[in-house]
């Protein structure tokens, strides 16, 4: 019984996206594909315990889902829809394995992450149609009512259909921009898991970070030559590796230099380092995610916080500023500069960002920390107050509050 349950769970994890993707290809309709896939998995839950797990669960699920989809289309197309009938008779489900770039799941991912859809719709669609998360799970993850999330997904699917957003892998010349759109969706999912906002959630949503990593691994398997895909995966792995040490027992965020490095996940670090080395060896100029991964690798390479090679980190940030001149990158660079050149130099850089980052909690938290190190307690206290006011993450607020209260 438990074995069957595990088999269903495994099949769901491994086969969901493939089933949805192949049905979308065949029926040209995400709605039909999603519903039929969900029904096929429900049928598996019902029948596998009695009939046993089929030898090829993926094929069984695809066949079952195909039947369900055909049933639904027959029910709906009582009127003479020639095109639909033709589709029903013509079974072009490919049985031979496709090449990597032709994988059906890639089409699905690019459609869900299409730039003509709002970012929140892309995230919801990707988690539902590629990730196989339920509407309830996605709604809970983003703290919106289930009905709202349902509408968001329904609206997005309706737009895909009405505006004819194509179901295909973009042409080679468009691929880099479109891949970076997909990675942005996955990075947002990861970050929401890593630094969850909202008073109702735990400070870390391991389900979301795990899902983001799983989907990024999938893209990596589908686009193995893409440096930024490898970079994002490495960045996620090296960040996830530190999760066990990141929140203290009393729910406070533990800053990097105070973390128990023995609690870091060595396997994830090794995998992340391998990816970073692979990218360095490629000799191709790195993109944003590869540089961020390299910065994280410098941190995870250091056995103790004091062993951190800060000049290397500042050099990497300099490279990143060249690609992404955003104030948030400049802020993070300043934090590294503080370790190398002292808090005065860093504060001067941070203060220049005030008019653009005044509404960002990390700006105030950084100022607070630098002012504290310079012994300017009064100003540090005010900066902590501003940071606490803006921080959305419970563990971060707890940490900032303690720091403020410790000021002399």
């Amino acid at each position, binding site marked *: 019984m438990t074995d069957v349950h595990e088999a269903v769970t495994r099949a769901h994890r491994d086969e969901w996206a493939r089933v949805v993707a192949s049905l979308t290809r065949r029926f040209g309709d995400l709605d039909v594909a999603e519903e039929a896939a969900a029904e096929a998995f429900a049928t598996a839950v019902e029948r596998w315990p009695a009939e046993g797990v089929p030898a090829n669960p993926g094929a069984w699920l695809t066949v079952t889902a195909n039947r369900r989809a055909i049933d639904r289309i027959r029910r709906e197309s009582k009127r003479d829809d020639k095109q639909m009938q033709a589709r029903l008779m013509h079974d072009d489900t490919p049985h031979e394995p496709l090449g990597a770039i032709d994988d059906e799941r890639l089409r699905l991912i690019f459609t869900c992450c*299409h*730039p*003509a859809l709002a970012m929140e719709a892309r995230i919801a669609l990707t988690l539902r149609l590629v990730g196989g998360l339920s509407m309830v799970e996605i709604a809970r993850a983003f703290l919106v009512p289930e009905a709202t999330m349902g509408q968001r997904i329904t609206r997005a699917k309706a737009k895909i259909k*009405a*505006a*004819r*957003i*194509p179901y295909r892998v*973009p042409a080679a010349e*468009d691929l880099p921009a479109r891949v970076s759109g997909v990675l942005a969706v996955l990075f947002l999912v990861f970050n929401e898991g890593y630094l969850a906002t909202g008073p109702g959630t735990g400070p870390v949503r391991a389900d979301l970070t795990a899902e983001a990593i799983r989907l990024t691994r999938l893209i990596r398997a589908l686009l193995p030559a893409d440096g930024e895909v490898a970079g994002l995966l490495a960045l996620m792995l090296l960040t996830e590796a530190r999760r066990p040490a990141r929140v203290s027992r009393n729910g406070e965020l533990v800053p990097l230099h105070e973390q128990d490095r023995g609690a870091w996940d060595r396997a994830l670090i090794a995998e992340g380092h391998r990816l970073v080395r692979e990218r360095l060896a490629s000799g191709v100029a790195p993109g944003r995610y590869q540089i961020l991964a390299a910065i994280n690798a410098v941190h995870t390479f250091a056995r103790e916080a004091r062993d951190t090679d800060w000049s290397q980190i500042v050099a990497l940030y300099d490279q990143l500023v060249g690609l992404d001149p955003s104030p948030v990158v400049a802020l993070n660079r300043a934090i590294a500069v503080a370790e190398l050149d002292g808090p005065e130099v860093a504060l001067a850089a941070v203060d220049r960002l005030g008019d653009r980052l005044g509404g960002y909690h990390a700006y105030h938290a950084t100022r607070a920390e630098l002012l504290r190190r310079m012994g300017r307690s009064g100003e540090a206290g005010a900066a902590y107050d501003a940071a606490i006011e803006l921080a959305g993450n419970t563990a971060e607020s707890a940490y900032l509050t303690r720091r403020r209260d410790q000021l002399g």
Partner: protein
Amino acid sequence: MQYLFSVIHDRTDLATPEEMTAIDAFNDRLQAEGHWVFAGGLGAPATATVIDNRGAEPVVTDGPYVESKEHIAGFWIIEAPDLDVALKLATEASRHCNRKVEVRPFVSE
């Protein structure tokens, strides 16, 4: 599949001669490549008249149906196989006419 490209503008000035030249060249290309259906520039919003004949008597109102900072200054109707192709054309259209362009599908079937 047909798409409406609405040209969105916040002033009532007409296209400059340079913009007109670029638009003409773009239109020639649309025709040569089979995307062209129709296009036109519109008079200023102040030249619009709204008729509402849903009631007993037709009501005529001077001016556009909605006062807004931005208005539709012109449009294209183009033929494209899918949104990716339409968005590519709209990207060029926006550059050539030097204005924002909204892409909207016609209801198909």
